[in-house]
């Protein structure tokens, strides 16, 4: 299972730059309440896509040491940690009578803390031998939390946990718009796939960071297009989120396929199976 054990291959884009990209995602998510019902959800969804790219690069760094359990397991774990952290954080901001604006950063911090605790347990108690496990799991949990919060804000149009009225418009809170509808379970699997699939699909001896990240852009944007469809009833911007997600997905997946064809020795269409067994 640990095909690529021994650490990540060449790094074209440094982890610090990707971290910056993820934090830019956090800033975009934060602009949501100020930009009205159309551009707010759009920027929240784009913020979530940036977080997915950050998560995919982090999973590339951690899982390249060989986890022994396959790449998807850490993806599922990070999303589970992210959902515990982000729901507790967003609800906690309301519960502690803080400004609802503190919800996302609170959820992000709780996810990073839980991720770091789990990683410390894995390293000390379970004796896992991955040098960057603690930083990697903490970053991955934070990225996953941002992707959940961003997509939730894109669906609800706000990141308040309970329903709120802003300028005469009723915004359903995240609890009503995302959790009661069951979309949170879909976001769990959708974001897991978007974060773990790129490295899981591209790993191997000739894995290339830029190519993996191109695939992560594609998975992130197609997740965004689906989130747009989920928000038909709650957001006025659903068509814009879907449209931009679909167009960006098309561009990214074309780039990824081109990059794969460029690196391949040759590409041949195998054709369909023959009608009769060849003698």
């Amino acid at each position, binding site marked *: *299972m640990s095909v690529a054990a021994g650490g990540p291959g060449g790094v074209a884009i440094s982890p610090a730059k990707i971290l910056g990209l993820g934090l830019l995602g956090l800033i975009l998510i934060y602009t949501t309440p100020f930009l009205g019902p159309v551009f707010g959800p759009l920027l929240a969804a784009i913020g979530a896509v940036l977080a997915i790219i950050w998560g995919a690069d982090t999973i590339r760094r951690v899982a390249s040491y060989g*986890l*022994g*359990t*396959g790449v*998807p*397991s*850490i*993806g*599922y*774990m990070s*999303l*589970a*940690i992210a*959902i*515990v*952290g982000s*729901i*507790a*954080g967003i*609800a*906690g901001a*309301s*519960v*502690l*009578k803080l400004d609802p604006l503190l919800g996302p950063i609170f959820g992000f911090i*709780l996810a990073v*803390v*839980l991720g770091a*605790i*789990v990683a410390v*347990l*894995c390293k000390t*108690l*379970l004796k*896992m031998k991955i040098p960057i496990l603690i930083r990697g799991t903490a970053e991955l949990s934070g990225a996953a939390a941002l992707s959940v919060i961003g997509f939730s804000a894109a669906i609800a149009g706000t990141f308040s946990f*309970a329903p709120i009225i802003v300028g005469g418009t009723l915004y359903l809170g995240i*609890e*009503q718009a995302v*959790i*009661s509808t*069951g979309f*949170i*379970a879909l976001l*769990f699997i959708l974001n897991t796939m978007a974060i773990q699939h790129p490295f899981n699909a591209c790993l191997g001896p000739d894995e290339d960071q830029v190519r993996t990240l191109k695939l992560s852009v594609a998975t992130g944007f197609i997740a965004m297009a689906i989130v747009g469809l989920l928000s038909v009833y709650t957001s006025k911007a659903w068509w814009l989120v879907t449209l931009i997600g679909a167009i960006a997905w098309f561009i990214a997946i074309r780039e990824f396929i081109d990059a794969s064809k460029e690196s391949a020795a040759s590409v041949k269409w195998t054709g369909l199976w023959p009608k009769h067994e060849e003698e």
Partner: protein
Amino acid sequence: MMVIDPYTLIAAVTVGGVLVGGGVHFIPVGGAPAAIATATGVGTGTAMLAAGSGMTGLITAAALTGQAPWLILASGAVGSMLMICITMLVGNLVYVFGVGCVPVSAKVDTDPITKLPQEKFVTPGTEGHGLPTVCYVSGTIGGALGGIGGGLVYWALYGALANPIFTLANRTDLSAAMVAGIFALSVFFVNAVIASYNIGGTIEGFHDPKFKRIPRGIVACLIASLVAGIFSLFLLPGFLGGI
């Protein structure tokens, strides 16, 4: 309906997490080698098995929302056991009639339950195939423990969230059930993956030498679930004095 106080909630999330983490050690996870029938167990990773049996257990547990706690736990256990048993049964059908190999364990000389000899049926160069009786029994026990654990987390969280003393007055039962369900599912996944790191990806069941690592896995799951349990208090405004 029983009123859950916050300390019971933390205790239930912790115990539930430990049961899930312990249960995973019983499940015959074969991983990629089992997918090509060169190792004993179900041919996929822990995360997939946890998703299948854990979600089924939570749905069956949630179907009895409002009933006595033991019924909720039993229902969760039965749901998880059914799902994991069906997975193992269909897996065995594929291994026996599709691949054409005998379900056999390479970790023991004779099956501890049926006393049937194992060693001479193992294809040279492989680590067994399919799911022999001992693995099947072990997997059923694992499914039961996981289902009870998941059901316990769900029952405690729902009881606390639907309780007007601790929670928002306008929270509906549906909303409480969904928040409790997704939180329980997340606790399930965290503990399942921690346990799978402990067993290094693959295990045959309680007869596998790797099973001796279970105390370490349980301590790790206990601490992680305790933290998740403390985080769950943020969902209870009445307890922390908000709104």
